[in-house]
């Protein structure tokens, strides 16, 4: 699974995710990637999110919209909301994976609860990073 989230100069957020699914997949199984609000979500009033991992758990936890809602209604920061979901909510269900997110101020998060996640970022705040493991 691959994904990207972006904030442009006009303050618009966007998100995208693309996947080949799971090895040996049967029965037409579909994961979280194409489900808006679960594996992919963007809302200028909160954040843009793209997820990767064991899709069934992301679906049950409605991950991407949950983070946006926590920010809009619970006044949590993107950092707080995404860490809580990835390091508490998902593991409580037995879910593994990670996500990337960016908010309307350009704050970027890349939490994951697996051994590694391929990830990278670049921002106008002179931030740049590429990594695989913690």
């Amino acid at each position: 699974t691959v994904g990207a989230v972006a904030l442009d100069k006009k303050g618009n957020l966007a998100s995208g995710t693309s996947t080949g699914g799971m090895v040996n997949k049967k029965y037409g199984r579909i994961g979280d990637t194409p489900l808006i609000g679960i594996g992919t979500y963007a809302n200028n009033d909160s954040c843009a999110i793209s997820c990767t991992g064991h899709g069934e758990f992301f679906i049950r936890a409605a991950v991407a919209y949950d983070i946006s809602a926590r920010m809009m209604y619970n006044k949590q920061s993107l950092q707080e909301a995404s860490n809580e979901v990835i390091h508490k909510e998902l593991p409580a269900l037995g879910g593994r994976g990670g996500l990337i997110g960016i908010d309307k101020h350009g704050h970027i998060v890349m939490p994951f609860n697996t051994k590694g996640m391929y990830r990278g970022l670049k921002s106008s705040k002179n931030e740049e990073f590429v990594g695989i493991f913690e």
Partner: protein
Amino acid sequence: MKAYGIAIHGGAGTVSRAKMTKWKAEAYKETLKRAYSMAYQTLHKGGSSIDAVIEAIVILEDSYLFNAGKGSVYTHLGTHEMDAAVMEGKKLKAGAVASVGYVKNPIKLAHTVMTKTKHVLISGEQATEFAKDHNLEIESKEYFYDEFRYKQWQKALMNDKVQLDHDEDGQKFG
């Protein structure tokens, strides 16, 4: 000046450091860096966030290293069923596809659903036909062949196990 930026991922999983050789790590990092750098340039020049997102994902879909597009894993039947989605935060516009085969860049198909239809999510063979109707690139079965992925599938078949594609022996992230 307003901040702008891009973040990308290529999947999360359980591969161990020991199995990630130096050259493999370099190959992954080089592709990730190319993807976010190209997309960042689009933003820097005043381009839209949706264009930057699609640009980054196309680069990752076109690499055999990641489980999307060209590097997609095999299903139980030896086919490729790809999914993709895009969403804009301004008016909550969205487009998505599920279980499409042979489309070179599923993210472009998802964007076509968002911009050319009133739907959000379409799936299966009719979605592949929709891609052809909108002149999106369709690739052959050979294009999606990757020896590593093929062996991963054969191994999963033997264990008859469905697995995230970057699990331990998968050496790749999901």
